[in-house]
Each structure stands twice: as structure tokens, then as C-alpha cells.
């Protein structure tokens, strides 16, 4: 997260600063020495989490080995909320500062949010099948997560339509700004709704996790956080490149416009003062 230091005027400047002299060297990628270090750390954390989550930690007393799903599921859910939060915060900052970097960051957050919400939903249903005997139940958390996925799909659908960065209207950032409040209202009301009827069927979703299991969960968090940061950094840079590639070179376009052939005056350009 901090690696990208959302600085719209100089995205990735911190990463560039960490590797002076790298300019122009190597193939053209979105990678930088900073992002490579982050990537290595993320891969190491993933390896550690896999080791702990699948081998070193014991099975849970109640859930058995199904607890190993939690090490993916819970950090993913956190990551998707983090993505939504980034989108809302960056949208607000775009509306305030109007610099393109914030808009790119808002899009990156939403896309990562969607990726992790899909993982959350899939792992949640996979956990539900052996636990409740069904892939889907109208549990408050599952339902509000599904709605969150739809909200993200809607935001990205609007975003896809409104691509032109120079003529960008405020509608995408306003929808992005509404994302987090919507997520909050939806999840609160859904939880209130479900708690009235089903007496806490699913409090076992987050059972007491202690000891080695806690260590495994923490390595899961670490891995997902680092992976999230790496993905966000690269998604931001891809978005920035898209912005640069699409950005109108105004000087060039103006010259082209002034020298347009064939559209010249079809009339004598006579006196400026027209006889009255």
C-alpha cells in the first residue's frame, strides 16, 4: 500500500527513487526495483502461508481441516473491503483535487475489490457446502457480500463506458464516492434483517481461532496484504499507462486541426467590415 504512495503528480515516484539509474534499462514493463522487492516479499509470504495453512498448523477441533479455508476466506474478505475503501477515498480525492492519478487509483481499487469479493464468495460457498450442507444460505454476511459484488460490477460497468479521461465527467467519481456508504448501509440492514429471524445460525463462521491456527491465519493475512499491495501497484501503473496512452497530445491535435486539408474556405474571405 505505502509502496505506491498515491501521488497523482508523480505516481510511483517513491518506487523510482528507490532504484536510481534504472531509467531506460531493461524491458518496458510496469515493474520497478521497488515493485520487484514487493513481489518477492509477497511470494515469500504466500509460500509461508501455504506452508502454515496447509501443513504446519493442526486441524481445528470442531471444523477439522475445513478451517484451512478460513486462511484464504477471511483475508480475502478484508482485502475486498480495503479495495472498496480505496475506491471511495480516491474518488473523494479526485473530486477535490481533480488530478488523474486519483481516478486511476479509484479504478484499481474497485477492480481488486471485485477480484477478492469473487474469491470470498467462492471460498465462502465451498466452506458452506460441508458445514451447512448447502452452497448458499441467506446468511447476513454472504448476502451483503453478494450485494457488494453487484455494487462493484455496477461501478466498473459505468467506468468502462466513461473511459475518455479528458472529457471525464464527475459521474464515475460520484458513484465511487457512494460505494462505501452503500456497502455500509447494505451490510447493516442485511445483518439487522437476518438477525431478526435466524437466531445466529452462522456465528460459527468465525470460531475461536487460537494458537497455531491463529499463526496460520496471520500468515494468510500477511500474504493477502502483500499480494494486494503488489497487484494494486501494478494495476495503478497499468491504469496510468492507459491514461497516458489515451491522453490527447493537445499541441499535436491543435496543429493537425489547424492544417486540416480540404476543409478550407469555400468563399473569398473578403472585407472584415461588411458594408451595411
Amino acid at each position, binding site marked *: 500500500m505505502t509502496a505506491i504512495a498515491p501521488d497523482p503528480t508523480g505516481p510511483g515516484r517513491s518506487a523510482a527513487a528507490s532504484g536510481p539509474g534504472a531509467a531506460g534499462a531493461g524491458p518496458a*514493463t510496469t515493474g520497478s526495483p521497488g515493485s520487484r522487492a514487493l513481489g518477492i516479499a509477497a511470494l515469500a509470504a504466500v509460500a509461508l502461508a501455504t506452508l502454515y495453512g496447509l501443513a504446519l498448523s493442526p486441524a481445528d477441533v470442531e471444523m477439522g481441516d*475445513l478451517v484451512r479455508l478460513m486462511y484464504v476466506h477471511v483475508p480475502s474478505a478484508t482485502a475486498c473491503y480495503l479495495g472498496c475503501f480505496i475506491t471511495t477515498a480516491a474518488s473523494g480525492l479526485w473530486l477535490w483535487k481533480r488530478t488523474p492519478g486519483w481516478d486511476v487509483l479509484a479504478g484499481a481499487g474497485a477492480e481488486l475489490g471485485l477480484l477478492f469479493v469473487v474469491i470470498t464468495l*467462492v471460498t465462502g460457498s465451498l466452506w458452506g457446502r460441508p458445514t451447512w450442507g448447502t452452497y448458499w444460505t441467506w446468511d447476513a454476511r454472504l448476502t451483503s457480500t453478494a450485494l457488494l459484488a453487484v455494487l462493484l460490477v455496477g461501478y466498473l460497468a459505468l467506468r468502462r463506458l466513461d473511459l475518455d479521461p479528458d472529457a471525464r465527467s464527475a459521474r464515475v467519481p460520484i458513484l465511487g464516492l457512494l460505494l462505501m456508504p452503500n456497502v455500509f448501509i447494505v451490510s447493516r440492514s442485511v445483518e439487522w434483517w437476518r438477525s431478526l429471524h435466524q437466531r445466529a445460525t452462522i456465528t460459527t463462521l468465525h470460531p475461536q481461532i487460537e494458537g497455531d491456527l491463529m499463526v496460520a491465519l496471520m500468515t494468510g493475512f500477511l500474504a493477502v496484504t502483500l499480494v494486494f499491495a*503488489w*497487484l494494486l501497484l501494478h494495476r495503478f501503473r497499468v491504469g496510468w*499507462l492507459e491514461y497516458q*496512452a489515451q491522453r490527447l497530445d493537445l499541441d499535436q491535435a491543435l496543429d493537425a486541426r489547424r492544417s486540416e486539408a480540404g476543409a478550407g474556405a469555400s468563399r473569398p474571405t473578403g472585407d472584415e467590415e461588411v458594408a451595411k
Partner: protein
Amino acid sequence: MTHVGYVAVTWGLSFVLIGGYALTLVARGRKLSRQVPPEARRWS
């Protein structure tokens, strides 16, 4: 280990989804990097 299938599918699918997304990101980054002048890529 109980429920091996569920555990394997969960972890495997997560790896595939995140890894696939990461690969597409890198590929998109490479493609776009060639279209954009180097000074636009302030990180390299």
C-alpha cells in the same frame, strides 16, 4: 486430512484467480509500456 477436496479447490482456485489476474496485469503493462514514451513511466 478431512475434506481434502474442498481445501484443495479453495486454495487452488484462489491461486489460479490471483495468479491469472497478476499475469494479465503484467502482460497489459508490457503492451502499454511499448505504446507510451519512457518518460511517462516515471517508475523505471
